[in-house]
């Protein structure tokens, strides 16, 4: 167990929403606090939707459940409930979920691998080795259904976005944009440098838990060859 979190500053955002601000920077420890708070609030505050981002947490509530009183607005009532929940000791997650993503790097699947290598002053093989060595965490999902923003990129691999975004980046593309790395869950327009592709599907809207990666999950990449990529692509989705 770790000690209770102090109530972060908050502001009303809309008629049915408030935003908790834990900080203003991209930082793994700060992001972990956001996810710990989100997990606790989801468990303890029913009917309040939690949307974690890098350093903030959006709470959306049903105004009818939180009618204002003579002394408190709806947002103050929700904030009071949040304060009470955050005073509870937060159980440390012993084993945060770890997800491994097999990736075919370079070639047609990673057309920008050479660009990233030249920015980094490394060989393509070294870029792949360093990308696979990283231990990543899903900071948040956004941009499109199931798109993970991952923390933990080796700073040497940071690469500027493409001057001209692509109109369509294929589903499964693993890419680097600035200090971030992520995976395109479906074909989308995008400006990140594409270095590889995973045959796994990241978002299955028919599934009960549609996103393979959830905010807070740990992620590792494993380099695979063309043959394994083909073998995994041919397998039924559920067995990959």
């Amino acid at each position, binding site marked *: 167990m770790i000690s209770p979190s102090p109530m972060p500053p908050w*502001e*009303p*955002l*809309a*008629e*049915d*929403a408030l*935003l908790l601000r834990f900080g*203003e*920077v*991209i930082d793994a420890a700060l992001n972990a606090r956001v996810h710990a708070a*989100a997990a606790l609030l989801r468990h303890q505050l029913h009917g309040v*939707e*939690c*949307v*974690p*981002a*890098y*350093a*903030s*947490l*959006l709470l*959306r509530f049903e*105004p009818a459940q939180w009618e*204002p009183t003579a002394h408190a*607005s*709806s*947002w103050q009532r929700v904030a009071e409930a949040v304060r009470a929940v955050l005073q509870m000791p937060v159980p440390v997650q012993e084993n945060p979920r770890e997800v491994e993503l097999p990736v075919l790097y370079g070639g047609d699947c990673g057309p920008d691998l050479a660009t990233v290598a030249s920015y980094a002053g490394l060989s393509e093989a070294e870029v792949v080795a360093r990308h696979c060595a990283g231990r990543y965490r899903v900071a*948040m*999902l*956004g*941009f*499109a*259904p*199931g*798109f993970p*923003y991952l923390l933990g990129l080796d700073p040497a691999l940071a690469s500027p976005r493409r001057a001209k975004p692509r109109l369509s980046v294929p589903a499964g593309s693993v890419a680097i944009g600035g200090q971030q790395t992520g995976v395109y*869950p*479906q074909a989308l327009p995008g400006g990140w440098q594409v270095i590889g592709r995973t045959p796994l599907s990241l*978002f299955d*809207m*028919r599934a009960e838990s*549609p*996103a393979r990666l*959830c*905010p807070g999950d740990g992620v590792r990449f494993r380099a695979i060859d063309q043959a394994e990529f083909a073998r995994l692509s041919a397998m039924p989705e559920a067995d990959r």
Partner: protein
Amino acid sequence: MSVSVLKPGLLTSLQDGGRPGYAALGVGRAGAIDVPAWRLANALAGNRGDEAALELTLIGPTLRFERAAVIALTGAPVDARVDGMRLPGWTRCVLPAGSVLQLGAMAQGCRAYLAIRGGFMAEPVLGSRSTDLHARIGPHQGRPLSAGDRLAVGESGPVLTRVHTPSPLAWSLDPQPWFDFHASPIALLRGHHFAALNEDSQQRLFQDRFVVSTDSNRTASRLDGPRLALRAPLELISEATLPGTLQLPPSGQPIALQVEAPVTGGYPRIGQIAAVDLARLAQRRPGHAVCFVETTLEEAVARLARRQRRLQRLLHAIAQRLEHA
């Protein structure tokens, strides 16, 4: 029972109340952009509540009804004809089997709803039959209708089959409180970064006239007009956004997020449009003016609650009246 799409119109999609609860997975709510109009269309068609209806944009589709059907049109006033006979909006119409309904241009506004008794059917995705055109999820893999599509219709109970001509009811709703004919000002709350606007821009936001840009859609209403500027550039990290959030990208032209907006964003948030006025903004067509008037959260909440009560009363009254029709 099914309905065939002969012509798709400019942009027609299946919409219901949307898919709340998945924002943390990157999935927005989507759903009907003018919720009161969609709910009233369903009520007039004799539905219970959350059935999927068609959302029409600027120019409606041409549809063929295989069997007799009960329909209702609400939202922006749209030209609707069957065999040259003009159908009124904001009421219930019974159409005979084989009717071809031609929906044309909207005299005003941007979005209209066509509900059918029984609702349009499609496999729900994450609990909703709403089409999210931006995220490409929902009916028809998240695309708008195209010619040749067939839309299944749910169980509608007995429908008068002896009707040989389109038969609207003798009464219709007054669209006045539900459709903004006068382009009145849109209520706006100050956002977190309002104070970061320079003084001139703070004044212009509430005093100047903006114009809805042609690249507006269900993701956002983009606003041309005065270019707003910050006192100093802000380097922000992405955080959750909401429909109604007014963002300021580096171009200086504000963007009002709509129902299909990405659930996170990194632009400064200079305002939040009062929920009660968001559909009214969505009904402004490209080229039309938008003015903002400042509101407080308390006032925005009170207006929203009043409208909800009014809508509930009307939905109840419609259900009662149709029972005796």
